[in-house]
């Protein structure tokens, strides 16, 4: 038994040595991705808030300010809000002259209708219309308009989220959960999927196609080590390394989000997630990385060189991006069967975790199905290592 495992262990040890003893490699896969994302997102956030904050804040006159929305503006200092007491014409005139940036009119019954929607029993089908007057020839007015609309969008998204999933649960605590999870569930899954993919891309083609290209694979195949052991050893070690890179990216991403959203919404609050949520994300990341590494390894085994492998894997990269985007648009799904779709299930599950709507069943389906798919690809990889047509193609 010990003898049998020796090959797998030797291969895992070598891949780890290659990674952990190489300072440049460590830097490039562990530190740089997370740091880069953190810096870029923070910078983006700063720039956005700088633009949004020309003259530091905007002036808005608001009639019938909604009690649901007011807190979002109180927390941030983007808007200086005055309650409208004069006539509509007075304020539209001020917007036209540039004395104030925008004039917002909430309908009288806005809070009543929203309240009913949140409680899950809307009495009418009228959709309240919020009117925002702005002056497109004034930059600050246009930006103020966009920022106000964005805040309303987030709010709207958050109530329909709650409505979709928790219809009937009247005691659902809306105020602490909604904006954060809404924003995160829109951004994180797709970015995470793409980052995991690039983590796998950084190691798998080099380790499979690279060894083939250099002839070291043939040297390994002449040894008595089983092909299946080579395949398992490679997939396990490469997955661990890619997972570490994925965790680094994820930390960079999640820590930078409050900075990305700064000024526009001061509502990104990571404390709404429990340790269990983070563990679920870790589990999904592991299963996803296993699958991605296994797929990328199989494709790499077909190639004669790292360069060729990378060109084969290009289309897969596009699929990953599309799947990530799709999950942000489509949102979470009710049918557990959809959690059998590889990659899409990972993105959906992360969406669910972020939106605090994840169910244990969907988590287990995602985890197990991805691991099963990964095993199928490991089996396939073994077959490929056994095939002289593939390993010694011309």
């Amino acid at each position, binding site marked *: 038994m010990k003898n049998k495992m020796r090959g797998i262990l030797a291969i895992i040890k070598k891949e780890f040595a290659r990674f952990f003893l190489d300072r440049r490699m460590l830097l490039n896969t562990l530190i740089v991705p997370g740091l880069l994302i953190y810096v870029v997102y923070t910078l983006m956030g700063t720039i956005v808030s700088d633009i949004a904050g020309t003259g530091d804040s905007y002036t808005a006159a608001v009639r019938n300010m909604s009690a649901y929305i007011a807190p979002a503006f109180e927390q941030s200092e983007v808007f200086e809000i005055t309650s409208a007491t004069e006539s509509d014409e007075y304020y539209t005139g001020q917007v036209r002259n540039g004395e104030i940036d925008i004039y917002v009119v909430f309908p009288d019954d806005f809070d009543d209708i929203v309240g009913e929607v949140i409680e899950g029993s809307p009495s009418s089908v009228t959709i309240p219309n919020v009117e925002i007057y702005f002056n497109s020839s004034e930059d600050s007015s246009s930006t103020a308009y966009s920022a106000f609309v964005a805040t309303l969008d987030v709010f709207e998204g958050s109530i329909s989220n709650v409505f979709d999933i928790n219809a009937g649960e009247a005691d659902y605590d809306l105020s602490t959960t909604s904006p954060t999870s809404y924003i995160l569930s829109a951004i994180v899954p797709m970015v995470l999927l793409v980052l995991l993919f690039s983590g796998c891309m950084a190691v798998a083609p080099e380790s499979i196609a690279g060894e083939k290209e250099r002839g070291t694979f043939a040297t390994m195949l*002449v040894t008595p080590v089983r092909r299946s052991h080579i395949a398992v050893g490679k997939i396990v070690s490469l997955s661990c390394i890619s997972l570490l890179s994925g965790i680094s990216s994820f930390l960079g991403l999640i820590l930078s989000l409050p900075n990305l959203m700064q000024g526009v919404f001061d509502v990104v609050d990571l404390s709404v997630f429990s340790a269990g949520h983070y563990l679920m994300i870790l589990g999904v990341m592991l299963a996803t990385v296993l699958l991605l590494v296994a797929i990328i390894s199989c494709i790499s085994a077909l190639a004669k060189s790292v360069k060729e492998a990378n060109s084969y894997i290009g289309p897969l990269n596009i699929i990953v991006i599309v799947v990530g985007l799709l999950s942000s648009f489509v949102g979470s799904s009710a049918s557990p069967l959809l959690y059998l779709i590889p990659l899409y299930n990972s993105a959906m599950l992360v969406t669910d975790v972020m939106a605090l709507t994840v169910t244990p069943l969907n988590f287990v389906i995602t985890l197990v199905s991805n691991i099963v798919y990964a095993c199928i690809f490991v089996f396939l990889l073994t077959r490929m290592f056994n095939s*002289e047509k593939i390993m010694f193609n011309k």
Partner: protein
Amino acid sequence: MQEILSVQNLKKQFKLSYKQQRLQRTPQKMLTAVDGLSFTAYKGEIFGLLGPNGAGKTTTLRMLATLITPDSGDAIIDGCSVVRQPDEVRSRIGFLTGELKLEDFFTPDYLFNFFSDLYGVPENVRAVRKRELFSRFGIDRFAEVKLANLSTGMKQKVSLVISVVNDPDFIIFDEPTNGLDVLTAKTVTDFLLELKSQGKTIILSTHIFSLVEKICDRVGIIIDGKLAALGTVSEITGEKNLEDVFFDIYAARAGGTL
């Protein structure tokens, strides 16, 4: 003379892709790389497979190393069939191709240990063997230096040593001096002669006449996957030199002219 390798009517065809058909300007779908090859090698000798590019040398040696399976025929190495007992064959042979580029990142010491692990060489045996091989070939001076920082000659020594980590009695070298400068090539030939002096059997392929004349005991000339001549170097050359004899044979096979 004790027989250690017996090649029996080995055949190997490759299916050509459309791209290969176009490149080689042939309408044929199949290419016969090795066409009924038979020969024997005896214990303790250096046997050379001499032939031009594309003659089928690499294909033959890969079949002997169990990397690819023959379409028909067999080869028996030290009593084991490459077709029926590939695992036994693998544990008995060493294999090195001139195209091998070991990973730059690792040290000779690390790679020696890695391949020893793959062969399942016990720790204590490995330590003794490593010390002996490293000192005999002067690797101990740079055993802890990454390959990236070594000269071509040093790297080649490391590759050679790696191919014998399991202390095989039968070693296969595919174009071991291909693309090497004269000094590095000398390192290689010295290494091969050293192995021979230890009683090991070597089969090598090459297209370099001088290498065969210098170190091979017997030689098989292979052209288009078929054996065109077989014997000791002096049997084949007689009064002439190997190069002239080769071109005579080649011209005869190709139908009179080169």
